[in-house]
Each structure stands twice: as structure tokens, then as C-alpha cells.
């Protein structure tokens, strides 16, 4: 009985681990050491563990963002730009309001970041609802364009003249989320996924709106003919998705980097998609999926630093993981549509 409960992505995950181990055994001169850093080494000290947990928190938020959009039949490929927007909105808020006390200040920064990400995705949602503009394209293009603009802002008008890095001025100490595992960036934001994941699970599965949202995702023509307001279900899920990305962006700023440094998204938006795919596009799968992904990326980072694994080999391993993860999803897709329907 229990066997049926094994999620479809489990064999793929094991395959990923096996592939990573195989690459290391084949190409590393000190495979034992490399493997140690890749797998158990992640928990070896507070820094590595804290960094891994921090990215687990962020990835579960961006993963949730993608899952919400997936469930409504929307594709949000603009996560990267929305995270970046969230971070820069929080930077702007901190510049405009430098005199707030700590906690309200942090909350306001996070609110502004969330609103920024939401606004960016809302535009794509409205384009889809009004003119049937493909959300997959519009989220991606919009986010790439905005990312360039933010790069310019950080390098130009907002840049910190005292720093040699391409970054905005650092946040004042009071606007920083304090670390719970010094010196890692792991902070109080770990509570957010613990609230958001059950909340959205409930919303999707136990509310009328959630049901209608999923119905739109399964078959938009059925939903339309059932009399649902399609405008809402084409904009709302994307907007929520953008808001969650923006939230992640503001958390990266207030909890990890403390300054709007160029490149701070570090693939958070894209990796959110990977997490959503591993999770089988279901909310309950997000936390384990994010844990897997955060562990693997942290493992490869540490192995890169401390063993003879080269930057390229690290990238190869991550590439293999992505390939395996996305191909498994392809298989699921074909299972769902044996007739070979139109590409989404």
C-alpha cells in the first residue's frame, strides 16, 4: 500500500545523486574527499549548514511561486527578474525611509519588495487576460528587460561610491535580519515557508477560488464554459507568483547580502522552477524538493572550494541534474497527454 505513496520524482532524484557521484568518481583525483564535501560535508559546520538552510528557505518560496502559477496553467519564466525587482524595490524603500525603527522598517522593505515583484508579474497577467499574450514569453521578456534596467541602476545612479564592488550602499544594521547561525545568513525568515506552504496548500485545495484556479489550469476552455471569470484566473496566480518572487528578493537583500549587489539573484528564479518540477508541481513536495536542490547546490559549491573539482565540472554536475529533472517532467507530461497535444 505504502509503495504507491512514493512520489514520481524520487527515482529521478536518486538518479541525480548517482550521476553526481559517478561524475565525481570519474573525474576527481581525490573522489573520497570530493564526495565527502559534496554530501555529508554540507552539515559539517554552522556556515555551510546555515547557508544551505537559507537557500532552502528562499528556494521554497520561489518554488511555491512557480507551483501556484503552474496550477493555474500559467508559466512564469520571469522569476529571476521578479526576485531582482523585489530586491531593488526594497533598496529604494530603505533609501527613501532611512529613519524608521528596525522591525517596522524591515517589514516595510519586505512589503515593498513583494509589491514590486507582484507588479511586474501583474503586467504579464493583464497582457494575457486582455490580449491573450503568451505569459511564458511576456514574463521572460519583461523580466530580462527589467533585470538590465536594475543592473544599470546598481552600476549607475544607486551605486555605492565607497565600494569597489558593483553594489548599492549597504543597508543600515537595523534593517538587517540577524543571523541565527553566525556567520551564515540563515535568519528568522525560515518561518515564512512554514506559514506560506500550508496556507497555499489550503487555499488551492480547500477553497472555492483555489478549486476554480486549478480548474482553469487543467482546462481553460472547460473553466470558461463553466462561467468562471477568466480575467481573474489569468492575472491573480501570476501576480501571486510575482509577489512571492519579490518577497524572496527582499529577503535576499535584508537577510543575505544587506546591499543591492549586482547578481544577487544567483539563479534563485530559475532554480525555483527546478524545485517546482522536482516537487511534481504540488505544494507538499516543495519543501523536500527545495531541501534536495539546496543540498545539491551547496554540496557542489563546497566541493568546488575544497576539493579538486573545477568550476566547469561543478557546472557539468548541475547541468546533469537539470537535464534529469526536466526530462522526468517531460515524461510526466507525455503520460498526461497520450495523444500528444499542442506544446504548452
Amino acid at each position: 500500500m505504502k509503495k504507491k505513496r512514493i512520489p514520481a520524482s524520487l527515482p529521478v532524484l536518486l538518479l541525480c545523486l548517482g550521476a553526481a557521484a559517478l561524475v565525481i568518481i570519474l573525474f576527481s583525483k581525490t573522489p573520497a574527499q570530493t564526495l565527502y564535501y559534496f554530501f555529508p560535508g554540507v552539515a559539517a559546520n554552522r556556515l555551510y549548514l546555515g547557508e544551505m538552510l537559507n537557500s532552502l528557505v528562499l528556494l521554497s518560496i520561489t518554488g511555491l511561486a512557480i507551483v501556484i502559477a503552474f496550477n493555474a496553467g500559467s508559466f512564469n519564466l520571469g522569476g529571476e527578474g521578479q526576485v531582482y525587482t523585489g530586491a531593488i524595490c526594497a533598496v529604494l524603500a530603505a533609501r527613501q525611509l532611512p529613519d524608521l525603527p528596525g522591525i517596522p522598517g524591515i517589514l516595510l522593505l519586505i512589503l515593498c519588495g513583494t509589491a514590486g515583484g507582484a507588479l511586474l508579474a501583474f503586467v504579464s497577467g493583464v497582457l494575457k487576460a486582455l490580449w491573450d499574450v503568451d505569459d511564458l514569453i511576456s514574463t521572460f521578456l519583461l523580466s530580462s528587460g527589467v533585470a538590465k534596467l536594475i543592473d544599470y541602476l546598481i552600476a549607475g545612479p544607486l551605486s555605492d561610491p565607497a565600494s569597489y564592488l558593483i553594489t548599492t550602499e549597504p543597508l543600515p544594521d537595523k534593517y538587517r535580519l540577524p543571523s541565527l547561525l553566525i556567520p551564515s545568513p540563515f535568519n528568522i525568515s525560515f518561518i515564512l515557508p512554514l506559514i506560506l506552504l500550508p496556507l497555499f496548500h489550503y487555499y488551492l485545495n480547500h477553497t472555492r477560488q483555489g478549486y476554480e484556479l486549478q480548474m482553469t489550469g487543467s482546462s481553460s476552455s472547460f473553466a470558461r464554459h463553466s462561467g468562471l471569470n477568466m480575467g481573474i484566473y489569468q492575472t491573480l496566480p501570476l501576480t501571486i507568483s510575482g509577489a512571492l518572487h519579490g518577497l524572496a528578493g527582499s529577503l535576499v537583500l535584508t537577510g543575505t547580502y544587506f546591499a543591492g549587489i549586482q547578481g544577487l539573484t544567483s539563479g534563485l528564479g530559475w532554480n525555483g522552477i527546478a524545485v517546482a518540477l522536482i516537487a511534481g508541481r504540488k505544494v507538499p513536495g516543495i519543501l523536500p524538493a527545495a531541501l534536495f536542490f539546496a543540498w545539491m547546490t551547496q554540496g557542489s559549491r563546497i566541493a568546488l572550494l575544497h576539493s579538486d573539482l573545477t568550476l566547469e565540472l561543478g557546472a557539468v554536475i548541475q547541468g546533469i541534474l537539470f537535464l534529469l529533472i526536466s526530462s522526468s517532467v517531460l515524461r510526466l507530461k507525455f503520460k498526461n497527454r497520450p495523444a500528444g497535444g499542442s506544446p504548452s
Partner: protein
Amino acid sequence: MTVKNNTSLLLSILITLLLLTSLSCSPGKSESPGSQGGSEKETAAPQSMSLAVFVPGVLAGSPTYEMMDAGVRKAAGEYGATVKTVEGGFNQAEWKSKVLALAAEKKYDLIISSNPSMPEICRDIKKSFPDQEFLVLEGSRIENDTVSTFLFSHLELSYMLGYLGGLITSSDELAGSNDDLKIGLIAGQEYPEMMQRIKPGFENGLKAAVPGGELDFRVIGNWYDAARASDLALGMFDEGVDVILTIAGGANQGVVSAAKDKGKYVLWYDTEGYSIEPGVILGSGVIREDKAAYEQTVLALTGKLAPGSSVYAGVHEGYIDFIDDAELYREHVPESIRTVMSAEVAKLRDGSLQFR
């Protein structure tokens, strides 16, 4: 059904692999006891020191980092120290956490890096790991510094190249030199070193050679876009610029190809550049990062490198130079220019002319 069969086959393969993995893991653990919880007991012998080189970027294709790595390794070889070189990649946002991870291992006596942005990162890490020592080449010192720095005088290097640029643009003997007294400078980005030292030094050099000379300064916005660099350079050549100093990393190649197409000239900044495009690259400076890295590492290995120490060195001390003994330089640059140039360079070498 086949899916199920495949799954069980995969599972068995993977379980075997994982078993292998866990088996081979155990020696790894025993190799690095220092990294586990009880890190207070350092068992390393005092003689054999352990060094880490952090490259903010990648080694391949960046000669300055290769020179730093070579310098450190030479010193380490002589004193029996071990060196671990780590590449940080191009995303500057990730550098700090990578250096932090090196410091957290607590097994490196010294972490060596090279980049103007590294001191601020290392100072920050020093707050969490006060016992970790750092040496940063190309770094500027601050009051009460905790990080050792070694700064090269970019004012002097850019002065020499600006001086040569002035001589080239005012020359009657070079085919590509027109009547306008304009020279160009293309930078990857506007960073403090560029705006405060390289650009003013370059302009000083130009004015010293040709008092009425004019500088055309352009910024690409990144360090890789060779196409944009080429467009910028072509535009500058059309506006009367004869020679461009390019400091744009991977985008340099775009400037070189534009100059070749237009029959104009390029100055190279910090590594020997004549052979890249003979006849187009008329002047090349060099920063002897290997020498600085070697000497500073030897100081560290002999216990003479004080934390927070700083050196600011230039042409006179031998850490920066203009390469005038290259065959290609003599072949493509007219003697009249070389004579005036060598007289000016000589003043910097003997210390009678200094910019700090």
C-alpha cells in the same frame, strides 16, 4: 509497467552507487579532522603552512591572476607550503560566501587574492574569523586595516601609456596618425581605480607629451561585450582618435579588431600585449603581480608579514613597467618616438618622477 521495471532497475543501480559512495566517504572524513566540530585542536606542524589563493573570476585567460597564482606557488614551493587555488567565478555577489567558506575551514594560514574589491570583503569576513589572515594585491589600505594590501601605482602605469599615446597621435611618421591630437580610453566599467587613478594618470601622460591633447573616454558597461567595444572604438576612430588604451577584459579583442580594420593603434595595459596583434598594439605596460605575490608570500611564510601591512609600489620599485625591450615594439614604433619615450620612462625608473 515498463516504467516500474525501469524504476526498480534504476533503484538497484543507485543503491549500489550510494553504497560505494558512503564506503569511499569514510577516509575523507578522517583526512580532515580539523574541519569538524573540535577545531580548537590544530595539529598542523608549524613549518608546513597552508595557503589559499582566491581568484575573483577564473584563472584561464586572465594573465594577472595566473601571475599571482604562479608567484604564490613559487614561494610555497621554496618553503614547503601547500597551496589551494580556488576560482570564484564571475558573479561578484558570490565571492564573499566563497571566501567565507575558505576562512571557515580554519586550515589556511593565509588567504591571498587580487582585486580592488577584495579588501572590503576580507575585512568583513575578518569580523567573523578574526584569526584568519588575508593578503590582497591591487587592494588599497584604510585606517587601522586588518587586511594586508599591496597596491600598484596605476597613476604611473597609465601615465606612461598616456605619454606614449600623445607621442603616437602627434607623430608624422605613423601612417594611422592624423592631425587631430585625440587619444582614447575604453574601460569595461567605471570603477574607483579607473576614475581616480587610471584615467587621470592617462590624461596626465597625454598632456605631458602633447599639451593640447584631448582624451576621449568611453565605458562599455561590462567586461565581455567585444561587439560593443568594437562599435565604440570604430566611433572613436571616426571622430579622429588614433590610438586607444583598452582596459576591458574579454572585450579588449573588439577594440583590437576595430583598430586593425581602421589601420589605427591600441595600447595594452597590464600584461605583455605586443604579440596579440603586431603592428596594431604599439605599447604595452606590465604589472608584475607574480613578483609582488612571491615576495609577499615569502614574508608571510617567514612570519614577517604583519596583519594590516600595506605596500604602495610603482615603476621605481620594479613592480610596474613599460615594456620597451620587445622586438615587436622596436619593429613597429618609429625610433623618434622610442627615444623620447625611453627618456620619460627612465625618469620613472630612477625615481626622479613619481606619482602616488
